[in-house]
Protein backbone atom coordinates (compact mmCIF):
# COMPACT_ATOMS: atom_id res chain seq x y z
CA UNK A 1 0.00 0.00 0.00
CA UNK A 2 2.84 2.37 0.73
CA UNK A 3 4.27 2.14 -2.78
CA UNK A 4 0.85 3.05 -4.11
CA UNK A 5 0.70 6.22 -2.07
CA UNK A 6 4.19 7.32 -3.04
CA UNK A 7 3.39 6.66 -6.70
CA UNK A 8 0.35 8.88 -6.34
CA UNK A 9 2.42 11.64 -4.77
CA UNK A 10 4.90 11.40 -7.61
CA UNK A 11 2.10 11.58 -10.14
CA UNK A 12 0.63 14.68 -8.60
CA UNK A 13 4.05 16.32 -8.34
CA UNK A 14 4.61 15.72 -12.05
CA UNK A 15 1.16 17.04 -12.88
CA UNK A 16 1.77 20.13 -10.80
CA UNK A 17 5.11 20.78 -12.50
CA UNK A 18 3.43 20.47 -15.89
CA UNK A 19 0.64 22.84 -14.91
CA UNK A 20 3.13 25.42 -13.64
CA UNK A 21 5.28 25.14 -16.78
CA UNK A 22 2.18 25.65 -18.93
CA UNK A 23 0.48 28.34 -16.91
CA UNK A 24 3.21 30.62 -15.59
CA UNK A 25 4.23 32.25 -18.90
CA UNK A 26 0.56 32.86 -19.66
CA UNK A 27 -0.06 34.42 -16.27
CA UNK A 28 3.00 36.58 -16.73
CA UNK A 29 1.69 37.84 -20.06
CA UNK A 30 -1.60 38.75 -18.39
CA UNK A 31 0.11 40.37 -15.44
CA UNK A 32 2.31 42.50 -17.72
CA UNK A 33 -0.66 43.57 -19.82
CA UNK A 34 -2.38 45.11 -16.79
CA UNK A 35 0.63 46.80 -15.17
CA UNK A 36 1.10 50.57 -15.13
CA UNK A 37 4.46 51.87 -16.48
CA UNK A 38 5.81 52.45 -12.97
CA UNK A 39 5.50 48.78 -12.06
CA UNK A 40 6.87 47.65 -15.43
CA UNK A 41 10.03 49.64 -14.75
CA UNK A 42 10.41 48.16 -11.28
CA UNK A 43 13.51 46.08 -10.69
CA UNK A 44 11.50 43.67 -8.59
CA UNK A 45 8.56 42.73 -10.77
CA UNK A 46 5.57 41.20 -9.01
CA UNK A 47 3.09 38.57 -10.22
CA UNK A 48 0.03 40.59 -9.34
CA UNK A 49 -0.13 44.25 -10.44
CA UNK A 50 -0.57 46.51 -7.41
CA UNK A 51 -2.40 49.07 -9.43
CA UNK A 52 -3.98 47.28 -12.40
CA UNK A 53 -4.81 49.47 -15.38
CA UNK A 54 -6.28 49.27 -18.85
CA UNK A 55 -3.97 52.04 -20.10
CA UNK A 56 -1.76 49.55 -21.95
CA UNK A 57 -4.69 48.44 -24.08
CA UNK A 58 -5.54 52.03 -25.00
CA UNK A 59 -1.92 52.79 -25.77
CA UNK A 60 -1.62 49.65 -27.91
CA UNK A 61 -4.52 50.80 -30.09
CA UNK A 62 -2.96 54.27 -30.36
CA UNK A 63 0.49 53.02 -31.32
CA UNK A 64 -0.44 50.52 -34.01
CA UNK A 65 -3.44 50.07 -36.32
CA UNK A 66 -4.69 47.08 -34.32
CA UNK A 67 -8.34 47.26 -35.37
CA UNK A 68 -7.43 47.46 -39.02
CA UNK A 69 -5.00 44.55 -38.57
CA UNK A 70 -7.62 42.48 -36.77
CA UNK A 71 -10.07 43.12 -39.61
CA UNK A 72 -7.43 42.07 -42.15
CA UNK A 73 -6.72 38.91 -40.18
CA UNK A 74 -10.42 38.17 -39.92
CA UNK A 75 -10.96 38.60 -43.66
CA UNK A 76 -7.92 36.52 -44.60
CA UNK A 77 -8.73 33.74 -42.14
CA UNK A 78 -12.46 33.59 -42.89
CA UNK A 79 -11.82 33.72 -46.64
CA UNK A 80 -9.24 30.96 -46.42
CA UNK A 81 -11.49 28.79 -44.25
CA UNK A 82 -14.55 29.08 -46.51
CA UNK A 83 -12.70 28.56 -49.79
CA UNK A 84 -10.55 25.74 -48.43
CA UNK A 85 -13.57 23.78 -47.23
CA UNK A 86 -15.51 24.41 -50.44
CA UNK A 87 -12.79 23.01 -52.66
CA UNK A 88 -11.56 20.34 -50.25
CA UNK A 89 -14.85 18.62 -49.41
CA UNK A 90 -15.51 17.09 -52.85
CA UNK A 91 -11.91 15.96 -53.18
CA UNK A 92 -11.85 14.53 -49.67
CA UNK A 93 -14.97 12.58 -50.58
CA UNK A 94 -13.23 11.06 -53.58
CA UNK A 95 -10.11 10.30 -51.54
CA UNK A 96 -12.15 8.52 -48.90
CA UNK A 97 -14.50 6.57 -51.15
CA UNK A 98 -12.44 5.64 -54.17
CA UNK A 99 -9.06 4.08 -53.83
CA UNK A 100 -7.99 5.23 -57.26
CA UNK A 101 -4.46 6.19 -58.22
CA UNK A 102 -5.49 9.83 -58.03
CA UNK A 103 -6.81 9.46 -54.51
CA UNK A 104 -3.62 7.72 -53.44
CA UNK A 105 -1.47 10.39 -55.06
CA UNK A 106 -3.47 13.07 -53.30
CA UNK A 107 -3.04 11.36 -49.95
CA UNK A 108 0.67 11.06 -50.55
CA UNK A 109 0.82 14.73 -51.45
CA UNK A 110 -0.85 15.66 -48.17
CA UNK A 111 2.02 14.03 -46.31
CA UNK A 112 4.80 15.28 -48.58
CA UNK A 113 3.56 18.86 -48.53
CA UNK A 114 4.20 18.97 -44.80
CA UNK A 115 7.90 18.60 -45.47
CA UNK A 116 8.46 21.62 -47.71
CA UNK A 117 10.69 24.29 -46.45
CA UNK A 118 8.43 27.27 -47.03
CA UNK A 119 11.31 29.27 -48.43
CA UNK A 120 11.51 27.02 -51.46
CA UNK A 121 7.83 27.66 -52.17
CA UNK A 122 7.57 31.28 -51.15
CA UNK A 123 10.06 32.70 -53.65
CA UNK A 124 8.30 31.35 -56.76
CA UNK A 125 4.95 32.13 -55.13
CA UNK A 126 6.13 35.68 -54.59
CA UNK A 127 7.03 35.90 -58.28
CA UNK A 128 3.72 34.36 -59.42
CA UNK A 129 1.65 36.65 -57.21
CA UNK A 130 3.70 39.62 -58.36
CA UNK A 131 2.87 38.79 -61.97
CA UNK A 132 -0.80 38.46 -61.05
CA UNK A 133 -0.50 41.80 -59.20
CA UNK A 134 -1.62 40.03 -56.03
CA UNK A 135 1.40 40.97 -53.91
CA UNK A 136 0.55 43.15 -50.96
CA UNK A 137 -3.12 42.23 -51.22
CA UNK A 138 -5.42 40.20 -49.01
CA UNK A 139 -6.87 38.13 -51.88
CA UNK A 140 -3.33 37.02 -52.71
CA UNK A 141 -2.75 36.02 -49.11
CA UNK A 142 -6.08 34.15 -49.03
CA UNK A 143 -5.02 32.13 -52.08
CA UNK A 144 -1.81 31.12 -50.35
CA UNK A 145 -3.62 30.26 -47.14
CA UNK A 146 -6.14 28.11 -49.00
CA UNK A 147 -3.40 25.99 -50.53
CA UNK A 148 -1.55 25.92 -47.25
CA UNK A 149 -4.66 24.73 -45.36
CA UNK A 150 -5.65 22.15 -47.97
CA UNK A 151 -3.48 19.21 -46.86
CA UNK A 152 -4.86 19.13 -43.35
CA UNK A 153 -8.36 19.99 -44.53
CA UNK A 154 -8.29 17.03 -46.94
CA UNK A 155 -6.88 14.80 -44.24
CA UNK A 156 -9.50 15.72 -41.66
CA UNK A 157 -12.42 15.69 -44.09
CA UNK A 158 -11.47 12.32 -45.57
CA UNK A 159 -11.56 10.96 -42.03
CA UNK A 160 -15.05 12.35 -41.51
CA UNK A 161 -16.28 10.92 -44.83
CA UNK A 162 -15.04 7.47 -43.86
CA UNK A 163 -17.08 7.72 -40.69
CA UNK A 164 -20.27 7.98 -42.78
CA UNK A 165 -21.46 4.42 -43.51
CA UNK A 166 -21.58 3.62 -47.23
CA UNK A 167 -24.80 1.69 -46.55
CA UNK A 168 -26.65 4.97 -46.15
CA UNK A 169 -25.56 6.12 -49.59
CA UNK A 170 -26.39 2.77 -51.11
CA UNK A 171 -29.84 2.86 -49.56
CA UNK A 172 -30.45 6.26 -51.09
CA UNK A 173 -29.31 4.97 -54.46
CA UNK A 174 -31.73 2.06 -54.19
CA UNK A 175 -34.50 4.53 -53.44
CA UNK A 176 -33.71 6.14 -56.76
CA UNK A 177 -31.73 9.17 -55.68
CA UNK A 178 -29.09 10.29 -58.17
CA UNK A 179 -25.43 10.54 -57.27
CA UNK A 180 -25.43 14.28 -56.68
CA UNK A 181 -28.74 14.10 -54.83
CA UNK A 182 -27.30 11.43 -52.53
CA UNK A 183 -24.24 13.54 -51.83
CA UNK A 184 -26.19 16.69 -51.07
CA UNK A 185 -29.11 15.32 -49.10
CA UNK A 186 -27.67 12.22 -47.42
CA UNK A 187 -23.90 12.55 -47.00
CA UNK A 188 -23.81 16.35 -46.75
CA UNK A 189 -25.82 16.76 -43.56
CA UNK A 190 -23.90 13.95 -41.87
CA UNK A 191 -20.63 15.62 -42.80
CA UNK A 192 -21.70 19.08 -41.66
CA UNK A 193 -20.11 18.97 -38.18
CA UNK A 194 -16.86 17.73 -39.66
CA UNK A 195 -16.91 20.44 -42.31
CA UNK A 196 -17.47 23.11 -39.68
CA UNK A 197 -14.63 21.77 -37.54
CA UNK A 198 -12.30 21.71 -40.53
CA UNK A 199 -13.24 25.26 -41.52
CA UNK A 200 -12.61 26.51 -37.99
CA UNK A 201 -9.27 24.75 -37.93
CA UNK A 202 -8.30 26.42 -41.21
CA UNK A 203 -9.46 29.70 -39.71
CA UNK A 204 -7.19 29.38 -36.68
CA UNK A 205 -4.14 28.37 -38.74
CA UNK A 206 -4.64 31.37 -41.03
CA UNK A 207 -5.32 33.73 -38.13
CA UNK A 208 -2.06 32.67 -36.48
CA UNK A 209 0.09 32.51 -39.63
CA UNK A 210 3.10 34.79 -39.80
CA UNK A 211 5.70 33.88 -42.43
CA UNK A 212 3.63 34.26 -45.61
CA UNK A 213 1.99 37.42 -44.28
CA UNK A 214 5.39 38.89 -43.45
CA UNK A 215 6.72 38.24 -46.95
CA UNK A 216 3.62 39.07 -48.98
CA UNK A 217 2.21 42.15 -47.22
CA UNK A 218 4.25 45.34 -47.19
CA UNK A 219 1.78 48.20 -46.58
CA UNK A 220 0.98 48.56 -42.86
CA UNK A 221 -2.73 49.11 -43.58
CA UNK A 222 -2.88 45.71 -45.24
CA UNK A 223 -0.88 43.71 -42.70
CA UNK A 224 -2.40 41.08 -40.44
CA UNK A 225 -2.27 40.98 -36.65
CA UNK A 226 0.83 38.79 -36.18
CA UNK A 227 2.84 41.07 -38.47
CA UNK A 228 1.59 44.22 -36.75
CA UNK A 229 2.47 42.71 -33.37
CA UNK A 230 6.14 42.50 -34.35
CA UNK A 231 6.10 46.28 -34.93
CA UNK A 232 5.71 46.68 -31.18
CA UNK A 233 9.11 45.07 -30.72
CA UNK A 234 10.76 48.05 -32.37
CA UNK A 235 14.33 48.25 -33.54
CA UNK A 236 17.07 46.65 -31.43
CA UNK A 237 14.49 44.75 -29.43
CA UNK A 238 13.57 47.75 -27.30
CA UNK A 239 9.90 47.33 -26.59
CA UNK A 240 7.14 49.05 -24.74
CA UNK A 241 6.32 46.01 -22.65
CA UNK A 242 2.84 46.97 -21.43
CA UNK A 243 1.18 47.70 -24.78
CA UNK A 244 3.07 44.79 -26.33
CA UNK A 245 1.61 42.37 -23.79
CA UNK A 246 -1.84 43.89 -24.10
CA UNK A 247 -1.89 43.59 -27.89
CA UNK A 248 -0.48 40.06 -27.81
CA UNK A 249 -3.15 39.02 -25.34
CA UNK A 250 -5.94 40.45 -27.51
CA UNK A 251 -4.58 38.77 -30.65
CA UNK A 252 -4.81 35.37 -28.96
CA UNK A 253 -8.41 35.59 -27.81
CA UNK A 254 -10.22 34.78 -31.08
CA UNK A 255 -8.17 31.71 -31.93
CA UNK A 256 -8.43 30.57 -28.33
CA UNK A 257 -12.23 30.73 -28.40
CA UNK A 258 -12.47 28.98 -31.77
CA UNK A 259 -9.96 26.35 -30.75
CA UNK A 260 -11.72 25.61 -27.49
CA UNK A 261 -14.85 24.89 -29.52
CA UNK A 262 -13.23 22.43 -31.90
CA UNK A 263 -10.32 20.91 -30.01
CA UNK A 264 -12.02 17.56 -29.45
CA UNK A 265 -13.04 17.29 -33.06
CA UNK A 266 -9.54 18.08 -34.30
CA UNK A 267 -7.91 15.35 -32.27
CA UNK A 268 -10.64 12.98 -33.39
CA UNK A 269 -10.32 14.04 -37.03
CA UNK A 270 -6.54 13.83 -37.07
CA UNK A 271 -6.56 10.47 -35.42
CA UNK A 272 -9.12 8.87 -37.71
CA UNK A 273 -7.13 10.37 -40.56
CA UNK A 274 -3.90 8.90 -39.24
CA UNK A 275 -5.17 5.45 -38.42
CA UNK A 276 -7.59 4.80 -41.23
CA UNK A 277 -6.23 6.53 -44.31
Amino acid at each position, binding site marked *: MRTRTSARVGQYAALLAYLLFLALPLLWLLSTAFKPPRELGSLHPAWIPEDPTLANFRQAFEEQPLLRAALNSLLAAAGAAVVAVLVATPMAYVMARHRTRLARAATGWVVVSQAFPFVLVI*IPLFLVLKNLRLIDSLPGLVLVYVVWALPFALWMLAGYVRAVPTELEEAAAVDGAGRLRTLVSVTGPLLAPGIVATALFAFVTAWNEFFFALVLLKTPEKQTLPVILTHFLGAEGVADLGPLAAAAFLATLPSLVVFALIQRRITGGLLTGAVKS
Partner: protein
Amino acid sequence: MTAVTEARHTAKSPPGRGRPRRGARRGAWFLVLPALLPILVLSVGPLLHGVLLAFTDAQSGRTEPTRWIGGLNFTDLARDTLFWESFRIGLVWAVGVTVPQFLLALGLALLLNQDLRLRWLARALAIVPWAMPEVVVGIMWRLVYNPDAGILNETLRDLGLGDGRDWLSGLGTALPAVIVVGVWAGMPQTTVALLAGLQNTPRELHEAAALDGAGAWRRFRTVTWPALRPVALAITALNFIWNVNAFALVYVLTNGGPGGRTRLPMLFAYEEAFRYGQFGYAAAMGCVMVAVISVLLALFLAGRLKGGDGA
Protein backbone atom coordinates in the same frame (compact mmCIF):
# COMPACT_ATOMS: atom_id res chain seq x y z
CA MET B 1 1.94 8.52 -41.85
CA THR B 2 -0.25 7.12 -44.56
CA ALA B 3 2.19 4.60 -45.87
CA VAL B 4 2.60 3.17 -42.42
CA THR B 5 -1.08 2.67 -41.82
CA GLU B 6 -2.09 1.78 -45.35
CA ALA B 7 -1.53 -1.92 -44.82
CA ARG B 8 -3.62 -1.92 -41.68
CA HIS B 9 -6.51 -0.35 -43.46
CA THR B 10 -6.61 -2.79 -46.32
CA ALA B 11 -6.26 -5.66 -43.93
CA LYS B 12 -9.01 -4.55 -41.61
CA SER B 13 -11.65 -2.98 -43.79
CA PRO B 14 -14.65 -5.13 -44.61
CA PRO B 15 -14.66 -6.41 -48.19
CA GLY B 16 -16.39 -4.25 -50.73
CA ARG B 17 -16.01 -1.03 -48.78
CA GLY B 18 -14.68 1.87 -50.78
CA ARG B 19 -14.88 -0.13 -54.01
CA PRO B 20 -15.32 2.26 -56.91
CA ARG B 21 -18.76 2.12 -58.45
CA ARG B 22 -19.48 2.41 -62.13
CA GLY B 23 -19.16 5.92 -63.48
CA ALA B 24 -17.45 6.99 -60.30
CA ARG B 25 -14.19 7.76 -62.02
CA ARG B 26 -15.73 10.22 -64.43
CA GLY B 27 -17.52 11.95 -61.56
CA ALA B 28 -14.32 11.92 -59.53
CA TRP B 29 -12.49 14.31 -61.83
CA PHE B 30 -15.24 16.84 -61.54
CA LEU B 31 -15.09 16.61 -57.76
CA VAL B 32 -11.34 16.70 -57.52
CA LEU B 33 -10.61 19.59 -59.86
CA PRO B 34 -11.52 22.51 -57.54
CA ALA B 35 -8.87 21.42 -55.04
CA LEU B 36 -6.41 20.02 -57.53
CA LEU B 37 -6.07 23.20 -59.58
CA PRO B 38 -4.96 25.48 -56.73
CA ILE B 39 -2.66 22.75 -55.44
CA LEU B 40 -1.01 22.39 -58.84
CA VAL B 41 -0.77 26.12 -59.53
CA LEU B 42 0.16 27.38 -56.08
CA SER B 43 1.93 24.43 -54.50
CA VAL B 44 3.36 21.87 -56.92
CA GLY B 45 4.17 24.52 -59.50
CA PRO B 46 6.05 26.81 -57.14
CA LEU B 47 7.90 23.85 -55.67
CA LEU B 48 9.23 22.79 -59.09
CA HIS B 49 9.87 26.41 -60.00
CA GLY B 50 11.80 26.80 -56.77
CA VAL B 51 14.05 23.88 -57.67
CA LEU B 52 14.69 25.47 -61.09
CA LEU B 53 15.41 28.85 -59.50
CA ALA B 54 18.18 27.24 -57.48
CA PHE B 55 20.12 26.81 -60.73
CA THR B 56 19.77 30.46 -61.76
CA ASP B 57 21.14 33.81 -60.65
CA ALA B 58 17.61 35.13 -59.98
CA GLN B 59 17.55 38.30 -57.91
CA SER B 60 14.70 40.51 -56.84
CA GLY B 61 14.20 43.86 -58.54
CA ARG B 62 16.86 43.28 -61.19
CA THR B 63 16.13 44.41 -64.74
CA GLU B 64 18.49 42.08 -66.64
CA PRO B 65 17.08 38.67 -67.48
CA THR B 66 17.75 35.79 -65.14
CA ARG B 67 20.51 33.45 -66.32
CA TRP B 68 20.96 29.71 -65.90
CA ILE B 69 24.16 29.19 -63.93
CA GLY B 70 24.08 25.44 -63.33
CA GLY B 71 25.33 24.27 -59.95
CA LEU B 72 27.13 27.50 -59.07
CA ASN B 73 24.73 28.33 -56.22
CA PHE B 74 25.37 24.92 -54.73
CA THR B 75 29.16 25.18 -54.94
CA ASP B 76 28.90 28.62 -53.34
CA LEU B 77 26.67 27.16 -50.68
CA ALA B 78 29.14 24.36 -49.99
CA ARG B 79 31.77 27.01 -49.21
CA ASP B 80 29.41 29.25 -47.21
CA THR B 81 30.49 28.66 -43.62
CA LEU B 82 27.65 30.83 -42.33
CA PHE B 83 25.14 28.55 -44.01
CA TRP B 84 26.65 25.40 -42.56
CA GLU B 85 26.73 27.05 -39.16
CA SER B 86 23.02 27.84 -39.45
CA PHE B 87 22.47 24.31 -40.65
CA ARG B 88 24.19 22.91 -37.59
CA ILE B 89 22.15 25.23 -35.37
CA GLY B 90 19.00 24.11 -37.16
CA LEU B 91 19.75 20.46 -36.43
CA VAL B 92 20.59 21.15 -32.78
CA TRP B 93 17.34 23.09 -32.52
CA ALA B 94 15.20 20.47 -34.27
CA VAL B 95 16.59 17.55 -32.26
CA GLY B 96 16.74 19.67 -29.10
CA VAL B 97 13.05 20.45 -29.39
CA THR B 98 11.67 17.21 -30.84
CA VAL B 99 13.29 14.72 -28.47
CA PRO B 100 12.50 16.33 -25.09
CA GLN B 101 9.10 17.26 -26.43
CA PHE B 102 8.32 13.66 -27.25
CA LEU B 103 9.67 12.24 -23.99
CA LEU B 104 7.89 14.82 -21.84
CA ALA B 105 4.69 14.45 -23.83
CA LEU B 106 4.80 10.67 -23.52
CA GLY B 107 5.22 10.90 -19.77
CA LEU B 108 2.42 13.41 -19.55
CA ALA B 109 0.09 11.42 -21.76
CA LEU B 110 0.62 8.35 -19.55
CA LEU B 111 0.03 10.55 -16.51
CA LEU B 112 -3.11 12.16 -17.88
CA ASN B 113 -4.43 8.73 -18.83
CA GLN B 114 -4.56 7.93 -15.10
CA ASP B 115 -7.45 8.75 -12.87
CA LEU B 116 -6.17 12.00 -11.41
CA ARG B 117 -7.84 15.08 -10.00
CA LEU B 118 -6.96 18.27 -11.90
CA ARG B 119 -6.59 16.23 -15.05
CA TRP B 120 -9.27 18.38 -16.67
CA LEU B 121 -7.25 21.50 -15.87
CA ALA B 122 -4.16 20.11 -17.58
CA ARG B 123 -6.21 19.28 -20.66
CA ALA B 124 -7.91 22.65 -20.72
CA LEU B 125 -4.61 24.51 -20.31
CA ALA B 126 -2.97 22.42 -23.02
CA ILE B 127 -5.21 24.07 -25.58
CA VAL B 128 -3.69 27.49 -24.99
CA PRO B 129 -0.14 27.06 -26.34
CA TRP B 130 -1.57 25.05 -29.21
CA ALA B 131 -4.01 27.78 -30.21
CA MET B 132 -1.70 30.73 -29.61
CA PRO B 133 -0.14 32.47 -32.61
CA GLU B 134 3.58 31.67 -32.62
CA VAL B 135 4.31 35.37 -32.66
CA VAL B 136 2.45 35.74 -29.38
CA VAL B 137 4.29 32.78 -27.87
CA GLY B 138 7.55 34.50 -28.79
CA ILE B 139 6.44 37.83 -27.35
CA MET B 140 5.25 36.16 -24.17
CA TRP B 141 8.56 34.42 -23.57
CA ARG B 142 10.46 37.61 -24.29
CA LEU B 143 8.52 39.08 -21.38
CA VAL B 144 9.43 36.08 -19.22
CA TYR B 145 13.14 36.21 -20.19
CA ASN B 146 13.38 40.00 -19.98
CA PRO B 147 16.57 40.75 -18.01
CA ASP B 148 15.05 43.49 -15.83
CA ALA B 149 11.28 43.20 -15.88
CA GLY B 150 11.06 39.45 -16.54
CA ILE B 151 9.77 36.94 -14.03
CA LEU B 152 12.46 34.34 -14.65
CA ASN B 153 15.32 36.42 -13.28
CA GLU B 154 13.18 37.69 -10.43
CA THR B 155 12.32 34.13 -9.44
CA LEU B 156 15.97 33.10 -9.64
CA ARG B 157 16.91 36.06 -7.44
CA ASP B 158 14.20 35.14 -4.95
CA LEU B 159 15.49 31.59 -4.81
CA GLY B 160 19.02 32.89 -4.31
CA LEU B 161 20.20 31.39 -7.60
CA GLY B 162 22.38 34.22 -8.79
CA ASP B 163 21.66 37.62 -10.16
CA GLY B 164 19.99 36.53 -13.37
CA ARG B 165 21.14 37.30 -16.86
CA ASP B 166 20.00 38.36 -20.29
CA TRP B 167 19.08 34.89 -21.51
CA LEU B 168 18.19 35.70 -25.09
CA SER B 169 21.27 37.87 -25.67
CA GLY B 170 23.84 35.59 -24.07
CA LEU B 171 26.04 33.76 -26.58
CA GLY B 172 25.80 30.53 -24.64
CA THR B 173 22.25 30.81 -23.35
CA ALA B 174 20.32 32.03 -26.40
CA LEU B 175 19.93 28.70 -28.17
CA PRO B 176 18.93 26.71 -25.06
CA ALA B 177 16.52 29.49 -24.09
CA VAL B 178 14.91 29.37 -27.52
CA ILE B 179 14.73 25.57 -27.41
CA VAL B 180 12.82 25.71 -24.12
CA VAL B 181 10.23 27.91 -25.81
CA GLY B 182 10.02 25.48 -28.72
CA VAL B 183 9.34 22.61 -26.34
CA TRP B 184 6.75 24.66 -24.46
CA ALA B 185 4.94 25.60 -27.64
CA GLY B 186 4.70 22.11 -29.14
CA MET B 187 4.41 19.83 -26.13
CA PRO B 188 0.66 20.14 -25.54
CA GLN B 189 -0.15 19.19 -29.11
CA THR B 190 2.10 16.14 -28.90
CA THR B 191 0.61 15.21 -25.53
CA VAL B 192 -2.94 15.41 -26.81
CA ALA B 193 -2.11 13.29 -29.85
CA LEU B 194 -0.40 10.62 -27.72
CA LEU B 195 -3.23 10.72 -25.20
CA ALA B 196 -5.73 10.11 -27.98
CA GLY B 197 -3.58 7.20 -29.12
CA LEU B 198 -3.48 5.79 -25.60
CA GLN B 199 -7.23 5.92 -25.30
CA ASN B 200 -7.52 3.78 -28.37
CA THR B 201 -5.66 0.98 -26.62
CA PRO B 202 -8.16 -1.61 -25.45
CA ARG B 203 -8.42 -1.61 -21.68
CA GLU B 204 -8.94 -5.37 -21.54
CA LEU B 205 -5.40 -5.94 -22.78
CA HIS B 206 -4.03 -3.97 -19.83
CA GLU B 207 -6.21 -5.83 -17.41
CA ALA B 208 -5.26 -9.18 -18.85
CA ALA B 209 -1.57 -8.27 -18.67
CA ALA B 210 -1.98 -7.08 -15.07
CA LEU B 211 -3.72 -10.33 -14.15
CA ASP B 212 -0.81 -12.23 -15.66
CA GLY B 213 1.36 -10.33 -13.17
CA ALA B 214 3.12 -8.02 -15.62
CA GLY B 215 4.68 -4.96 -13.98
CA ALA B 216 4.16 -1.40 -15.11
CA TRP B 217 7.24 -1.33 -17.36
CA ARG B 218 6.40 -4.67 -18.92
CA ARG B 219 2.82 -3.63 -19.55
CA PHE B 220 4.08 -0.46 -21.18
CA ARG B 221 6.51 -2.36 -23.38
CA THR B 222 4.21 -5.17 -24.43
CA VAL B 223 0.76 -3.55 -24.48
CA THR B 224 0.90 0.25 -24.50
CA TRP B 225 3.84 0.93 -26.77
CA PRO B 226 2.93 -1.40 -29.65
CA ALA B 227 -0.52 0.20 -29.83
CA LEU B 228 0.87 3.70 -29.53
CA ARG B 229 3.72 3.30 -32.02
CA PRO B 230 1.95 4.42 -35.21
CA VAL B 231 0.74 7.64 -33.59
CA ALA B 232 4.06 8.26 -31.84
CA LEU B 233 5.98 7.69 -35.04
CA ALA B 234 3.76 10.00 -37.05
CA ILE B 235 3.72 12.83 -34.54
CA THR B 236 7.50 12.67 -34.02
CA ALA B 237 8.23 12.77 -37.73
CA LEU B 238 5.85 15.67 -38.22
CA ASN B 239 7.25 17.54 -35.21
CA PHE B 240 10.76 17.14 -36.54
CA ILE B 241 9.84 18.49 -39.95
CA TRP B 242 7.92 21.39 -38.45
CA ASN B 243 10.89 22.21 -36.26
CA VAL B 244 13.35 22.13 -39.14
CA ASN B 245 11.08 24.59 -40.93
CA ALA B 246 10.52 26.78 -37.87
CA PHE B 247 10.59 30.52 -38.37
CA ALA B 248 8.13 32.76 -36.52
CA LEU B 249 9.03 31.77 -32.96
CA VAL B 250 12.74 32.43 -33.30
CA TYR B 251 12.22 35.46 -35.55
CA VAL B 252 10.32 37.08 -32.69
CA LEU B 253 12.51 35.82 -29.84
CA THR B 254 15.99 36.65 -31.13
CA ASN B 255 15.75 37.27 -34.88
CA GLY B 256 18.70 34.90 -35.18
CA GLY B 257 20.94 36.69 -32.70
CA PRO B 258 23.12 37.07 -30.77
CA GLY B 259 25.85 36.87 -33.39
CA GLY B 260 23.91 34.32 -35.40
CA ARG B 261 23.76 31.83 -32.50
CA THR B 262 20.06 31.15 -33.12
CA ARG B 263 20.00 31.80 -36.86
CA LEU B 264 17.98 28.79 -38.03
CA PRO B 265 18.22 27.88 -41.75
CA MET B 266 14.81 29.38 -42.43
CA LEU B 267 15.85 32.73 -40.93
CA PHE B 268 19.04 32.65 -42.97
CA ALA B 269 17.20 31.85 -46.19
CA TYR B 270 14.55 34.47 -45.48
CA GLU B 271 17.19 37.18 -45.08
CA GLU B 272 19.05 36.02 -48.16
CA ALA B 273 15.85 36.11 -50.24
CA PHE B 274 13.89 39.07 -48.96
CA ARG B 275 16.54 41.30 -47.46
CA TYR B 276 19.36 40.85 -49.97
CA GLY B 277 17.13 39.74 -52.86
CA GLN B 278 19.21 36.63 -53.64
CA PHE B 279 16.32 34.47 -54.85
CA GLY B 280 18.44 31.86 -56.62
CA TYR B 281 20.81 31.39 -53.72
CA ALA B 282 17.98 31.14 -51.19
CA ALA B 283 16.21 28.60 -53.39
CA ALA B 284 19.38 26.51 -53.39
CA MET B 285 19.28 26.57 -49.58
CA GLY B 286 15.69 25.37 -49.74
CA CYS B 287 16.75 22.48 -51.97
CA VAL B 288 19.48 21.42 -49.55
CA MET B 289 16.96 21.52 -46.71
CA VAL B 290 14.48 19.35 -48.62
CA ALA B 291 17.19 16.84 -49.44
CA VAL B 292 18.41 16.58 -45.87
CA ILE B 293 14.92 16.34 -44.40
CA SER B 294 14.05 13.58 -46.85
CA VAL B 295 17.17 11.56 -46.06
CA LEU B 296 16.78 11.95 -42.30
CA LEU B 297 13.12 11.01 -42.43
CA ALA B 298 13.79 8.01 -44.62
CA LEU B 299 16.45 6.80 -42.17
CA PHE B 300 14.17 7.47 -39.22
CA LEU B 301 11.18 5.66 -40.73
CA ALA B 302 13.27 2.74 -41.95
CA GLY B 303 14.88 2.33 -38.53
CA ARG B 304 11.59 2.56 -36.68
CA LEU B 305 9.84 0.12 -38.98
CA LYS B 306 12.61 -2.42 -38.61
CA GLY B 307 12.69 -1.97 -34.84
CA GLY B 308 8.97 -2.61 -34.74
CA ASP B 309 9.12 -5.87 -36.66
CA GLY B 310 11.54 -7.35 -34.16
CA ALA B 311 9.37 -6.50 -31.14
